[in-house]
């Protein structure tokens, strides 16, 4: 049974009386790669976390095409600052499998495969906290992908990475997207959004200001604010 579409209706997140995100009405279909863009503080992270279900909504509904418990098991999230478990690289990547009762030896073998796939093959036994920023992101990616999620959220996975690390991560993401993983990610890098995205969500002041196919959006955005944002002007 497929998870998508994901349908949000009037979804709103508030903190201390202030609306961070919403109300959001959104339908994410089963195909494509979605880029979430917008200025700092617009609510990109909160929007992703809300869709992932780790930030509580005060209003509105969020419906997957399958039961919620199923959906929770079949999606992953990569944080802007990846969390390193105090273990070595292999056990970090294997951890999600261990949670679902995969035997240790099998989980470790698959973790080693994934480590090799993301370019951490030589580092499997190193403590995760000794990795560089780019390596940490790769570890987080492998750890998110090892469960073969159908939906993967990424919160600026390439922020503060150099060109080479960014390219390597994009290659991993493209491979995942070519498989069966539906990617929804935020980014500040418009080049990256154009390279990876098939549709774009432009977020402003906690609301979805524009949601269009990537080609149309980058050719000519519907709204003045989005045009200003693409020009590099300050949007408030």
């Amino acid at each position, binding site marked *: 049974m497929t998870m998508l579409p994901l349908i949000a209706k009037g979804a709103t997140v508030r903190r201390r009386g202030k609306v961070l995100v919403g109300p959001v009405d959104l339908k994410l279909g089963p195909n494509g790669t979605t880029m979430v863009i917008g200025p700092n503080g617009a609510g990109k992270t909160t929007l992703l976390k809300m869709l992932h279900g*780790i930030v509580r909504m005060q209003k509105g509904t969020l419906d997957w095409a399958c039961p919620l418990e199923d959906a929770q098991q079949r999606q992953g999230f990569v944080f802007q600052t990846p969390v390193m*478990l105090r273990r070595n690289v292999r056990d970090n990547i294997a951890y999600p499998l261990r949670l679902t009762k995969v035997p240790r030896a099998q989980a470790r073998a698959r973790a080693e495969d994934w480590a090799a796939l993301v370019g951490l093959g030589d580092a499997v036994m*190193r403590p995760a906290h000794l990795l560089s920023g780019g390596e940490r992101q790769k570890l987080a990616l492998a750890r998110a992908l090892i469960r073969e999620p159908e939906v993967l959220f990424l919160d600026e996975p390439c922020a503060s990475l150099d060109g080479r690390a960014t390219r390597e991560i994009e290659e991993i993401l493209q491979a995942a997207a070519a498989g069966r993983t539906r990617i929804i990610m935020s980014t500040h890098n418009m080049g990256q959004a154009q390279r990876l995205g098939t549709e774009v969500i432009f977020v402003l002041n906690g609301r979805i200001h524009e949601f269009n196919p990537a080609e149309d959006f980058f050719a000519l955005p519907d709204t003045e604010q989005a045009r200003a944002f693409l020009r590099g002007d300050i949007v408030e």
Partner: protein
Amino acid sequence: MSDIWGGMTQAFWLLITLDADLVEITLRSLRVTLTALLAASLIAFPLAALISVRRFRLRRVTIAVLNALMGLPPVVVGLAVYVLLSRSGPFGVLGLLFTPTAMIIAQVIIIVPLIASIAHQSLRELWSDYHDLLISLNTTKWQRIQALLWDGRRALLTAALAGFGRAIGEVGAIMVVGGNIDHATRVLTTAIALETGKGDFALALGLGFVLIALALIVNLLIHWLSHTESEGRW
């Protein structure tokens, strides 16, 4: 000065001749304290992890009470355990008063708050690190507690060592509930108190040196076994 010198020579002779009484009370000290430490850790570690992970209504109160109980006067704990275990008390039928078991119970009560409080300090930090990831991976409460206890094991070791230090050097409570009975409940600390009272400072000092050496050896041993200071480990 002569007392200290006498104490050192006496300690030296007691040690190299493996004095039977000394060996007996040293082993009893270790047995009582290590058993108490094990029991206290089994209670305190999961408790510390639980109050790090869960947001229940009395959480703040629990933490405050634990911190306050760290300074619990041992002699009062001894008194309370004495009252509970005495013939007329609720647990009198068990006949535990003036046994090593009573001493273990008293020490557990003294060190559980200490261990739990120190463990909670570090597990709380670890949890704020791990929070987003473990929530996102849809872990159960029990899996979160497991992850914290396993990945925080070095911090837990420190907490346990603090508990060991407090228990091995404790005299007030075990004197009251153990009674310092020769060949039954006499341990290093109560023997020192007795010898000091009798005016045999040399023997008391000798026992004191043994006690300090014991605490050092156990600490070093545990650090060595767990590679605490090795590079790149937690």
